[in-house]
């Protein structure tokens, strides 16, 4: 932890302060017994095999930072969330939330977090949104005199103040997810833990949900830990992301920098004349399917080397009279990024 150290290039919004980080995960190990058939149990009752879910996971999240956890299924994301919330005890390691040790001061640590599960059945579907929130206000010890105001406030925040007495079971998936977020915000916690919160949302609802989250982080300075499989969330919301695979941290950086690091040196150019000799000499491939209606053809350069090399190629093309309207390096989707990080670093781990 360094004073005023900028966390990531391209995202200078978050700076680290001298106070402890909001979330600190230090050398956390967790393993579970692997499931066995009855026959195996009877044959070898004393023998146990273990699945290592977390193997020395360490990272910290600064106050007001939006931090993403990425990883393929079975990477250990959910186990990590369970450890952070105190629902699972790690074999080894330490977790603190706002300076409170999750294992030793579970209640104080939990008071720092609002959690949104991917599972929207976390609330009672036979009650309306207000009834659900009033119940959780009591469970979270919100002062009796403040309950109604808090409930109305969070319902307004998630744009559900006008749902009246409609039972939660009749809500759409997006609305249910917003009620879950309202519950997480009831106590105005400094940290939000979100486990794939947009998994069951349509693209429009998901975008609105992300906009709301961004606003919450920016205006309320909340710290957000987000497990996600979504490109928009990893690249558009998260200040930094951590790539987890088979319980190991493979990389921690901004999603953009990781994508930059792991992407190929493949470039595309939008040109008027794909048969131009300069393009032929450069060994481009014409992408017919991407040709636009207004007559710009897309060509792909398989390997242009570094940024300097690409710039030099572009200069040469323009000097040769090639009309270029657009020239860009091909980025990676989140899936491709994960695949490459896991392939390159996972094998070394």
């Amino acid at each position, binding site marked *: 932890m360094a004073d005023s150290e900028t966390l990531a290039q391209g995202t200078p919004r978050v700076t680290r302060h001298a106070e402890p980080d909001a979330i600190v995960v230090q050398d956390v190990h967790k393993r579970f017994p692997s499931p066995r058939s009855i026959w195996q149990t009877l044959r070898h009752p004393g023998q146990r095999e273990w699945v290592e879910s977390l193997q020395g996971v360490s990272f910290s999240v600064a106050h007001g930072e939006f931090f993403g956890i990425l990883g393929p299924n079975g990477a250990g994301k959910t186990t990590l969330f369970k450890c952070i919330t105190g629902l699972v005890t790690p074999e080894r390691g330490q977790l603190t939330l706002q300076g409170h040790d999750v294992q030793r001061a579970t209640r104080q640590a939990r008071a720092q977090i609002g*959690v949104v599960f991917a599972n929207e059945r*976390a609330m009672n579907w*036979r009650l309306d949104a207000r009834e659900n929130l009033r119940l959780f206000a009591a469970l979270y010890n919100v002062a009796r005199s403040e309950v109604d105001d808090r409930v109305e406030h969070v319902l307004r925040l998630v744009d559900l103040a006008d749902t009246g007495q409609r039972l939660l079971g009749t809500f759409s998936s997006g609305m249910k997810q917003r009620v879950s977020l309202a519950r997480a915000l009831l106590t105005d916690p400094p940290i939000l833990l979100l486990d794939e919160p947009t998994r069951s949302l349509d693209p429009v609802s998901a975008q609105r949900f992300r906009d709301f989250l961004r606003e919450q982080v920016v205006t309320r300075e909340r710290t957000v830990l987000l497990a996600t499989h979504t490109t928009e969330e990893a690249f558009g919301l998260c200040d930094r992301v951590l790539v987890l695979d088979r319980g190991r941290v493979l990389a921690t950086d901004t999603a953009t920098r990781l994508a930059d690091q792991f992407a190929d040196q493949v470039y595309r150019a939008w040109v008027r004349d794909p048969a131009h000799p300069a393009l032929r000499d450069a060994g481009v491939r014409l992408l017919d399917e991407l040709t636009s209606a207004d007559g710009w053809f897309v060509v792909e350069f398989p390997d242009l080397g570094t940024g300097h090399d690409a710039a030099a190629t572009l200069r040469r093309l323009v000097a040769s009279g090639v009309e270029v309207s657009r020239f860009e390096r091909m980025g990676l989707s989140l899936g491709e990024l994960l695949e490459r990080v896991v392939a390159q670093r996972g094998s070394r781990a």
Partner: protein
Amino acid sequence: MRVVLAMLRATWRAATSYRLATVFSLAGLAFTVVPLYFVAGALQGTMERSIQAEGGQYFAFVLAGMVATMIITEAISTIPSNVGSAATSGTLDSLFLTPTPPVVLFAGLSAYGAVWTLIRAALLLLGGAAFGASISWANLPQALLVLALLALAYVPFGLLMTASQIAFRTSGPFMSGILLASTFLGGVYYPVHVIPSWLQSLAWFVPLSYGLRAFRKLLLEGAPLLSVWSDVGMLLGFIVVLGSVGVAALSLAFRYARRTGGLSQY
């Protein structure tokens, strides 16, 4: 207390949103009292001598037995079944993530069932009284106290099953086993002294034997509370001993579930 009331209110509203189920649950009581009245009337002559010490009227005797059975069934089943259904539906995670201690959560989860059972038990007694069951209403507060102690003596079995539910996701066959043994040995349909002597010695380990005997003496005979002090003492003993075992089992189950990841479904 505030949390328990909030959970009671929420469960009440959710349960009563199933209106037909609520009506059927109450209507079912009529189908219990009426046949019981006729069957008890038919057996009155046979049973009269053996139940002299507990009111002498077989209809009231069985009615009291059924009320006690209703109470102990609820005491045993309410926590494990509510924890089980909350785990299945996914609400348990969110409950455990609040700063509310588990013991308060369990009380809150059970509150609705307890109140609903009390209402049904009261209606059963009122229905019985309407059909001529001889009940000493003046002794009702003392009888209720004994019923409360009886329920508390059975709650630890519920805690043991909740522990099993939390650790292994099943409460196993214990509930039906305990209820069967209690009904068979505890004197619900006949007094304990009529069963064979070797079985009677097993009945000393069944809290219902003491609770039901005291309940009947108070409610059917109008006996003073002091006359049942030994039964009340035994119930208190069960509460302390079984309660300690239940709490210890629950604590171990929580630790085990946190270690194995079974505490959470998500």
